[in-house]
């Protein structure tokens, strides 16, 4: 929808946009272009010379077993955080939607971890699950046959970061689901009830289809969250270890660039991640509005 009535001014709109555009160009576009360029070069170990190598950095990257492992790790991490997180949130929201009394209080009591920074949340959880001092391994050790030592056991480390990531985002998901559920007309569910539909059937046949835009939105948001926002969690808790078990792609790109100073490879990894980010954003935009107008 184009606005009919606008203000007329030759230079004012440009002036208003200038601060934001300037920051965007200097701190977003310029570095992104530099990354693109850097991905086509190889730097000598001392960083004093650069060679143009074309797409060699990418070829090496895709051939590298470490990178493949990192991609797999990212898949497991992202899928777990997204699917488990969204599913649990949906169940909680459905329960909350029934409880008329105290709904706001419950929502608040589930929303607050959203305010906790992921690295801080990670610190809480790493102690909770600490193999020597933590309360969870202490009481579950005899009951569940699982090695909770996240310092040495890769699976335990993965479980730790997945649980922390889900915990932090749970309230956000639930709040979105609740808003979505409340937009569903009550009369529809009552009609189904009159027709003799059970609660479960009306959820499957009425609630879920009507809720599908919210479900889709949250799936995309959670994928973005797992892929890009969890850097601090990994850095604070596992540093990608043990033995690369939690080295997700974003963390590997950082380590290879900043710590190993393998700039070409790191830049190539950044480019791959950028492509992923662009695909996800376009996907999401397509969905939010079929046609973008200004």
């Amino acid at each position, binding site marked *: 929808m184009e606005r*009919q009535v606008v*203000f007329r001014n030759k230079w004012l*709109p440009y002036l208003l946009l200038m601060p934001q555009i300037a920051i965007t160009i200097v701190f977003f576009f310029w570095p992104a272009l530099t990354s693109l360029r850097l991905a086509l070069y190889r730097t000598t170990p001392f960083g004093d010379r650069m060679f143009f190598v074309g797409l060699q950095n990418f070829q090496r990257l895709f051939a590298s077993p470490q990178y493949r492992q990192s991609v797999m790790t990212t898949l497991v991490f992202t899928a777990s955080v997204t699917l488990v997180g969204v599913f649990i949130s949906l169940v909680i929201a459905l329960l909350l939607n029934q409880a008329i009394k105290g709904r706001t209080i419950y929502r608040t009591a589930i929303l607050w971890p959203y305010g906790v920074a992921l690295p801080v949340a990670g610190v809480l959880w790493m102690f909770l699950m600490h193999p020597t001092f933590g309360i969870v391994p202490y009481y579950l050790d005899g009951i569940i046959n699982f090695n909770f030592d996240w310092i040495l056991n890769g699976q335990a480390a993965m479980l730790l970061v997945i649980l922390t990531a889900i915990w932090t985002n749970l309230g956000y998901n639930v709040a979105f689901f609740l808003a979505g559920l409340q937009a569903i007309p009550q009369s529809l569910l009552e009609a189904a009830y009159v027709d003799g539909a059970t609660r479960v059937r009306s959820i499957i046949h009425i609630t879920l289809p009507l809720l599908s835009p919210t479900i889709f939105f949250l799936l995309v948001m959670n994928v973005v969250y797992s892929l890009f926002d969890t*850097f601090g969690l990994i850095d604070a808790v596992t540093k990608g270890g043990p033995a690369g078990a939690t080295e997700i792609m974003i963390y590997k790109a950082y380590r290879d660039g900043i710590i190993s100073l393998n700039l070409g490879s790191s830049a190539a990894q950044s480019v791959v991640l950028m492509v992923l980010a662009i695909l996800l954003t376009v996907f999401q935009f397509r969905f939010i509005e079929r046609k973008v107008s200004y």
Partner: protein
Amino acid sequence: MSRKAAVAKKSWKTLLNHLVLILIVLLVAFPLIYAFAISTQSLQEVVGRPTLKLGSSLVKNYREAWVRSNMGRLLFNSIFVAFTTTVGKIIMAILSAFAIVFFNFRGKAIAFWTIFVTLMLPVPVRIVSTYQVISDLGWLNTYVGLTVPLMASATGTFFFRQFYRTIPDELVEAAQIDGAGPLRFLWSVLMPNSWANIAALFVVLFIFGWNQYLWPLMITHTVDMRVVVVGLRSLIPGGGEMLPEWNIVMAAAMIALILPVIVILSLQKYFVELYIETEK
């Protein structure tokens, strides 16, 4: 089924519902409850059998955490960075959205996409080359470097754009007939109607700013420029000779999380009603 039985069945279901919900709330709160309990215990209690019992070292631990991590300075930095980036983002978002919605000008589509493409370039993805830019500008280890590059906000611009588009044309016409220019219209008509939106965005952006980790980690290198979320890491005991002083770590973690949690709890009404309803 008789009416009475139906009512009884319903109230049982309600009770069950609440019980399950209370269990969930407790599970969600458990990491915090445990961390708080630990933060009051002495080192002997921490290395003993894990327990939720409160210890007697609360004051001692929090004082130790405060002194050891230079917490006063860390908190100041965090508050400063979170607040400045939030205010900067909101102002830039309002100005940009205003220009995009209420003006027609050449290059509008380019401006729109320039802003929104930033959504596709998260900080970690371009960190190495952004670091270079900050270093060339001489902004490493400065407050300018900590705040200004984070002030562009596609989310905020999008959010205000959605809101401005709901402003009826009649309102704009009326203002024009009264002889109000665009800036006057922005200040006297749009702003008074925007406070709830600003509050909603404030919650999201403040938490985002407070919870920044990679950015401050990369561009600061002295202890006095560190923010809380980054500073916490240095307290975590590694292996070897270090005492497992998790009680001190938990005390520091409590201090690090309290402010953003208060922000979300006190402004959650706006956050849920506006941010979530419109983002959907």
